[in-house]
């Protein structure tokens, strides 16, 4: 006999349908397909198949239209079938959001899943993706999500996403120019305090923040930034490479 496990327990029927199991886990009632971030699934009941996005797209052509981001294709899987799928992200808070004929841009590493009625596109801001349409999506946050309205300046690391407002511009504290010449040189070498760069939001909309600045490793971010370097000519690309080498030799920040 075993007792004392007062902790919540579920079976395939009693697991919540499209709702949180607890603040750190969410149960998707799957009937058809969902896009799920790789590794987010922690358990499932029923007949569920997980296939890579492009692998699934070869069977169902609509997938490519919904997931127009080859950059992230190998970070995502399509869960298909019937059942309940429980997703979580390293014990972080998991929240579901309903988007109604709208658009929302979110940090890719925090997006755990979205219904196939939504369309995913890569944002111009590196590391972020935009969801367009109507449907449900799941995102994790390090601590509860804070909603704020523009005008607002956010720390890039704490920024989770934004909706309905124009993409942010980068803001630098105005005294950067007043700083000494040496500080300017250090800035060119990639040495920054880390807080003088912020994202500046204007217009109408909502900005989502998480209450911690803990960085999540996003493998695709490197590829995104790398693809942006295509804007550079060969000589500037070489100069950038030298600066990056100098930064890594300084121990990196």
């Amino acid at each position: 006999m075993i007792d004392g496990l007062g902790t919540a327990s579920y079976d395939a029927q009693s697991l919540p349908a499209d709702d949180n199991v607890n603040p750190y886990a969410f149960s998707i009632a799957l009937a058809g397909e969902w896009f799920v971030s790789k590794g987010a699934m922690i358990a499932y009941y029923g007949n569920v198949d997980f296939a890579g996005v492009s692998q699934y797209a070869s069977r169902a052509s609509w997938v490519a239209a919904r997931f127009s981001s080859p950059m992230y294709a190998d970070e995502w899987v399509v869960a298909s079938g019937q059942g309940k799928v429980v997703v979580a992200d390293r014990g972080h808070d998991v929240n579901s959001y309903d988007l109604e004929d709208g658009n929302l841009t979110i940090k890719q590493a925090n997006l755990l899943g979205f219904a196939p009625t939504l369309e995913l596109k890569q944002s111009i801001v590196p590391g972020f993706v935009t969801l367009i349409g109507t449907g449900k999506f799941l995102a994790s946050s390090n601590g509860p999500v804070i909603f704020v309205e523009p005008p607002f300046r956010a720390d890039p690391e704490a920024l989770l996403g934004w909706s309905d407002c124009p993409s942010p511009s980068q803001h630098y504290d105005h005294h950067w120019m007043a700083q000494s010449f040496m500080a300017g040189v250090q800035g060119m070498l990639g040495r920054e305090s880390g807080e003088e760069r912020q994202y500046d939001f204007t217009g109408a909309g909502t900005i989502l923040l998480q209450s911690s600045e803990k960085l999540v490793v996003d493998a695709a971010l490197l590829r995104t930034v790398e693809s942006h370097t295509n804007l550079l000519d060969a000589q500037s690309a070489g100069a950038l490479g030298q600066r990056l080498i100098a930064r890594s030799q300084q121990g990196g920040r």
Partner: protein
Amino acid sequence: MAQLVAQKRVLLADLTGDSIRAMSGSMVAYQGQVEFKSAGMGGGGGFRAAIRQRVAGESISLMECTGHGRVHLAYQAQDVTVIGVQNDTVTVESEHVLAVTRDLQLDVQFAGLRGMTTGQGLATTKVSGSGQLAIVSDGPLIGLDVAPGQPVVVDPDAYVAGLGQLQMSLVSGVTWRSLVGEGGGEPFSLRFEGHGRVYIQPAER
């Protein structure tokens, strides 16, 4: 008789002249007269168990707490759950065992391939007998019932414990396609069939 009480992320162990075994280094505070000594790598399972644990690569290391008083135990601010066991068996991932009362036996079970895929050794701990067992989890535990015809599949990295008559098998999501590029992201999963309950944590180790 020692009493274990979970207080969110801290385990309170009240000792009345007897002893409990707890994860080495998990004591954060104590009141009264309590002695701590290493229970050795065997975890009290005897020399044979010690040998098997060595072979299995188990990292479980326990200390014995003896005396009168209250010991506060915690591990990395993880949630604590206390389970009462009466002539039964619970299977727990070894690194989740925070403390056991004296009359529970710990034994190591080989898990074969499953251990290999999760990289945490080749074994889990089987806790049997009568007494109390405290386990830690990264976030609150979620219990998932398993009944005939209703198997559950869980991520090996989220699996914490199992009770009842469960058969575990390894499900491979790997197709030939994933060998050349992208996979399903869940290359190995654990399928539980039979009758019982599986506990998972909302985090992956």
